[in-house]
């Protein structure tokens, strides 16, 4: 197939720090995660993911069919293929890189639809494999502190709600900190999510200092012997310096209580976001020390292809995808499924 290390070559090797090219998780389907009470139809994880991505893959595979059925892989075909990828938000550079991989050794040959899909999936997988890592909870920490950050409306609070349900179902004691003291009724929103899993929510009045609240919450979580403290934060645009500084302050203050905290900093990315998601990862990464990503809203028609560009460039772990507004609409991120779904396989 296509030669390996292609993305690393293209993107200057800056990606994946300890590129452990481990054989891909043959996806341990959620046996480990006791299903949160879901009386209705229990769809398998893969079906769900497919459902989440189906629009994308349909569109892509349709385009691929139209591009490649009985066709020579010539310049025009390659350009059309590149456009298919661009429409999935992979961005011009990543799209071009994949198209180049497709070209190598195949130019002007007759190529079948199946082969094109396989190459596409393989190329996407190459980038996504190293970043598909489950969220690891350090049981030695009491609590393991998870800070959730991101742009307004990207799904921080909802993701916390879903995550709380999963982690609670694993038998862990979760405490939530209502760190979005800015947006109207954000505290209420988190409280409702907390009550759905029976998790304690630590809150102050609206407008209170978020860092102070985080400080108190961590102390309290320590005292009550919680396993995990999930801290919600107000949404912020990454180019707002003073708001990013506020996030840094939260980090500083948390570290006064536990110098090793936060143990996880999750950045939520909205799948409908275009190229700006790169800037979100870069700046939140720099300022808030993001350790992992969650891509939300993959249940729409947005394809989330920007994640490929992000992973190629930053190599940050991708832990979960959000596929709806329900409590169990959070799925572990699996590179193989993502790649195959994007490729229409």
């Amino acid at each position, binding site marked *: 197939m296509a030669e390996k290390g292609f993305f690393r070559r293209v993107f200057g090797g800056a990606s994946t720090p300890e590129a452990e090219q481990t054989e891909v998780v043959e996806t341990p389907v959620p046996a480990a995660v006791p299903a949160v009470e879901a009386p209705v139809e229990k769809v398998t994880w893969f079906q769900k993911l497919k459902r989440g991505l189906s629009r994308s893959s349909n569109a892509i595979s349709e385009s691929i069919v139209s591009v490649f059925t009985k066709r020579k892989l010539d310049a025009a075909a390659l350009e059309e293929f590149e456009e298919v990828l661009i429409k999935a938000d992979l961005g011009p550079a990543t799209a071009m890189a994949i198209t180049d991989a497709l070209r190598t050794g195949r130019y002007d040959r007759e190529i079948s639809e199946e082969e094109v899909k396989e190459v596409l999936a393989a190329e996407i997988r190459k980038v996504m494999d190293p970043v598909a890592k489950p969220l690891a909870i350090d049981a030695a920490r009491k609590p393991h502190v998870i800070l959730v950050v991101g742009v307004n409306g990207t799904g921080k609070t909802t993701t916390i709600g879903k995550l709380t349900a999963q982690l609670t179902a694993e038998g862990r004691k979760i405490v939530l900190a209502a760190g979005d003291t800015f947006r109207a009724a954000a505290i209420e929103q988190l409280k409702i999510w907390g009550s759905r899993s029976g998790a304690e929510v630590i809150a102050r009045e609206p407008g209170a200092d978020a860092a102070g609240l985080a400080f108190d919450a961590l102390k309290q979580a320590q005292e009550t012997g919680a396993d995990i403290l999930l801290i919600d934060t107000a949404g912020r645009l990454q180019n707002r310096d003073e708001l990013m500084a506020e996030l840094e302050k939260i980090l500083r203050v948390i570290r006064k209580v536990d110098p090793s905290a936060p143990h996880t900093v999750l950045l939520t990315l909205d799948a409908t976001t275009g190229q700006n998601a790169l*800037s979100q990862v870069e700046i939140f990464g720099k300022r808030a020390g993001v350790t992992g990503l969650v891509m939300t809203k993959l249940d729409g028609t947005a394809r989330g292809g920007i994640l490929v560009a992000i992973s190629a460039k930053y190599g940050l772990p991708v832990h979960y995808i959000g596929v709806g507004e329900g409590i169990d609409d959070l799925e572990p991120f699996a590179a193989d499924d993502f790649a195959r779904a994007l490729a229409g396989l």
Partner: protein
Amino acid sequence: MFENLSERLGGILDRLTKRGALSEADVNEAMREVRRALIEADVALDVVRSFTDKVRSRAVGEQVIRSVTPGQMVVKIVHDQLVEMLGSDARGIDLNATRPVPLMLVGLQGSGKTTTAAKIARRLTDRQKLKVLLASLDTRRPAAQEQLRVLGEQAGIETLPIIPGQLPVEIAGRAMNAGRLGGYDVVILDTAGRTHIDEPLMVEMADIKRTTNPHEILLVADSLTGQDAVNLAKSFNDRVGITGIVLTRVDGDGRGGAALSMRAVTERPIKLIGTGEKLDALEDFDPERIAGRILGMGDIVGLVEKAAANIDAEQAQKAAERMRKGVFTLDDLAEQLGQMQKLGGMSSLMGMIPGIGKAKKQIDAMGIDDSVFKRQVAIISSMTRAERRNPDLLKASRKKRVAAGSGTKVEEVNKLLKMHRQMADMMKAMGKGKGMFGKLGSMMGMGGMGGGLPPGGMPDPAALEKLARGMPGGLPGGLPGGLPGGGLPGLGGMKIPGLPGLPGLPGKKK
């Protein structure tokens, strides 16, 4: 990350030495770059295609004006086409209907509908003295109705009382009733976010429309949206027939190509833009401004507007007066630093200046952040009046006192004094400049701030000049003389249009 389009086109087209009409080959080559720039700006691919086709037919055969390069010429054509497609028909919200006028907001989850609802209510109340009722039909997202209630309270706008358990359509009916009975002028219906492929929710939205017959149905969409913008805009428009678009998060650093995509597929005007979290951060849509941003040419107009609104006119006039005489005291410097802070600090300002990529990196590398302003202001305010007028008084012991008083170090005091000296020299040198703003502007934009602040002291003028050159179109009122690409006729994004001559300052642009 993004290269400015004019730089890129310059690279290709400026190699052409021949003058005269733009050939088809030139234009085709240019269109490749335009295409890429638009894709990077998140314009949907199909829209890019129709856009470049239009530009191509407009550009081929066009005479290149003598004073500009072919690259600049193409940029101008691209810009004009973009402005045209974004809509010169920008209109506000139409309320020409029987009272209460129903106004409905729709969109994806998290696009900013609720905040926008409150902002619009606030605007109609403030500007048109209308009586507005806000109603949240979002029974899905936890605490969504509560969110609108709180926002209404903050904005001083009535909200429909929440009755738990009611369905969205029922709430809509109740809202219209309350609107009639309460003598409201406008009823704003905030709906739940929905994915446009969620059939039951799309049906619900159509039902709400049928019940209330809204005079305006506004699609609220995130300006950071990628290629999906066309799908969502088309779906919402097909299902309920939107009457306009509100773009949110325009204060982000996204390129906003989704604006063009949505406008193109729906042919509905973009009516308003959201530019911040505060309830007054709602502005009229200005195609020039968004066009400049999509092309990566910075938000010059936005910068100028913001500067005009924030700078105290009287102070500015005084400062300009003194500068004309070549006087620049530490008080003047302190004032400039204060103005910088008012404008939202370095990063906010940098975000609006064209060609930021490069300059921002340079400035980041210099380690300047907004706290530097604060410290510098603190240093100056720790000086006595006499010292501020005559910095030569500041000998070792006095410097120590100032450093202690401002919580800084003597080295920092020295740096500030050195910076001030260099700036004062520059002011003198510029004393013969043309417009007032040229001086004040360059001081704020460059000479004073971007260049003046590095802790290592001020870069030499040559370096500044270089920095300015790195910014196509130049900084607002950049260094006097030699602004490459500046003054291209009709290119709104690249010069300072209608800068309301600082002293006096009242009129905003246009």
